[in-house]
């Protein structure tokens, strides 16, 4: 009799824990197969390195979004925030406030991180202290950050003026360590840090608890508002880290910088198996989700099956389909 109980428990834990965690990786593998079929160049090291490198912005931002969503929140402002942080960073780079290229770039990086953290703090405080739906708050700040960027750019673009500065900053995006591009290293570092914070620290446990059941968390003596606010700050810092590698890539910020990044980041999180309701966060799933999005775009470009102008539509469909799959897996 005790034997049957053991067998039952084992079978149940396999079916209800693993499916959702494994699904994104299976989807990734399927995409690899599909990509290889439509274009022989797809599996080339160059192409794949390129894909992973280009997924860096969304992957890094989506790590932050994993925290916000795990705690039961939502941040729609990340795309505009990226543009705003990039714009202010470049304006500072152009100000000549610090002498020496290295010192200048380092100071500008710190400033960008602080700006991102403050933007996140604003989102967090308005949501928690103002007791307003995060959807509404970040929809508002999305408009604010976007407008501020356009205002600062006077309707045009903000570009790094000094050619030397541009050249000095370029390697942050374009160089590599032992063949691994720096953006890829950044993805790994940010994801590893994120996973450590979410799974190994008290704060991470509280994030999951707050997203799982806010009332229980409060009765357990957890400061729910503090935890929620900090997830938005982490999101802001992740946006800033993404900006640190975005700025050297183009050397400019425009009105369309970061456009629809919120859609891509949230899609990456949802594909990765994080529950949109909160309470479950999967950092590595999120990274996998960001790769899937980038691979889909890449396959579209390589295959001519669908016009690449429709990438946004495809990504939009992916988030809806991912939600439907999550729901049906949740019912089991």
């Amino acid at each position, binding site marked *: 009799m005790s034997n049957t109980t053991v067998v039952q428990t084992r079978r149940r834990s396999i079916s209800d*824990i693993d499916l959702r965690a494994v699904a994104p990786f299976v989807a990734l593998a399927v995409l690899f197969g599909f990509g290889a079929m439509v274009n022989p160049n797809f599996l080339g090291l160059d192409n794949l390195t390129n894909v992973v490198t280009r997924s860096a912005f969304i992957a890094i931002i989506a790590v932050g979004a994993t925290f916000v969503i795990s705690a039961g929140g939502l941040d729609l402002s990340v795309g505009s925030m990226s543009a705003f942080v990039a714009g202010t960073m470049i304006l500072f780079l152009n100000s000549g406030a610090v002498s020496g290229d290295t010192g200048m770039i380092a100071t500008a990086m710190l400033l960008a991180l602080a700006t991102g953290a403050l933007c996140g703090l604003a989102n967090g405080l308005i949501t928690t202290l103002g007791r307003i739906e995060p959807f509404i708050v970040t929809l508002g700040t999305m408009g604010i950050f976007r407008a501020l960027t356009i205002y600062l750019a006077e309707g045009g673009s903000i570009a790094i003026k000094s050619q030397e500065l541009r050249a000095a900053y370029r390697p942050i995006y374009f160089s590599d360590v032992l063949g691994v591009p720096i953006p890829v290293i950044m993805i790994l570092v940010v994801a590893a840090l994120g996973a450590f914070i979410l799974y190994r*620290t008290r704060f991470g446990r509280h994030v999951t608890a707050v997203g799982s059941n806010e009332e229980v968390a409060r009765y357990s003596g957890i400061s729910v508002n503090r935890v929620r606010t900090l997830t938005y700050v982490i999101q802001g810092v992740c946006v800033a880290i993404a900006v640190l590698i975005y700025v050297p890539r183009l050397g400019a910020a425009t009105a369309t910088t970061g456009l629809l990044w919120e859609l891509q980041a949230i899609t990456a999180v949802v594909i990765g198996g994080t529950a949109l309701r909160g309470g479950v966060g999967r950092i590595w799933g999120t990274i996998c989700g960001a790769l899937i999005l980038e691979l889909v775009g890449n396959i579209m470009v390589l295959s001519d099956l669908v016009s690449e102008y429709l990438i946004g539509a495809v990504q939009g469909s992916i988030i809806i389909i991912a939600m439907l799959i999550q729901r049906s897996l949740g019912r089991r």
Partner: protein
Amino acid sequence: MSNTPLVEMENISIAFGGIRAVDDASADLHAGEVVALLGHNGAGKSTLIKILSGAYRRDSGTIRMNGEEAVINNPRDAKAYGIETIYQTLALADNVDTAANLYLGREIMTPWGTLDDVAMEARAREVMGRLNPRFERFKDPVKALSGGQRQSVAIARAILFNARILIMDEPTAALGPQETAQVGELIEQLKSEGIGIFLISHDIHDVFHLADRVMVMKNGRVVGTARVTDVTEDEILGMIILGKCPPGAVPGPGAMNV
């Protein structure tokens, strides 16, 4: 039993909007005593004990612990006084496992400042072994557990930290007869360890078995308090339904004027 009560709540009031959920209620509890709180749905029982557990902040009134005025403004304050609560709506975080629930808000950390899941699970196995020896599903999120299993997790969570006062809001409402009997035994055991227990229940019969005293509330006010040996079950029913205080009970502000 000592003469200074473990906890005294005096003239406690709280209103939500226009509703006086608890109105000038007083209650006390001694070490090793079980006091049952009875009353209809919406009588204010849960609200009164949520004030003691720090979940709600009272509008007026005082709380004393061992004769000294206590400051309880949030759940953490209450826990610092050794007040632990098992809430009526099974208060567990569904997506995390048993050990994480037991230690929620009071996690054990390693010397490096990371979560010590090994230590937490080991302690969880120890405590759960006492309550529910057949329980084995330590790795599953608690939403996968049965009602009885969840309730034993909730109880374990309350006694894990050496509670001096235990508040149980309908601890058996979601349980079958066997598990209910288990909770009864547990209450006896905790009581013999000198823990004071506030027990909210709808089952008068159960209450007569387990409680030393009963307190009845109606429309937010206390009808009266009595030792179970001084009143009959019918008299208690009269208190609950009509607000009529029998001779064996000490009347409160909610007693019907005759």
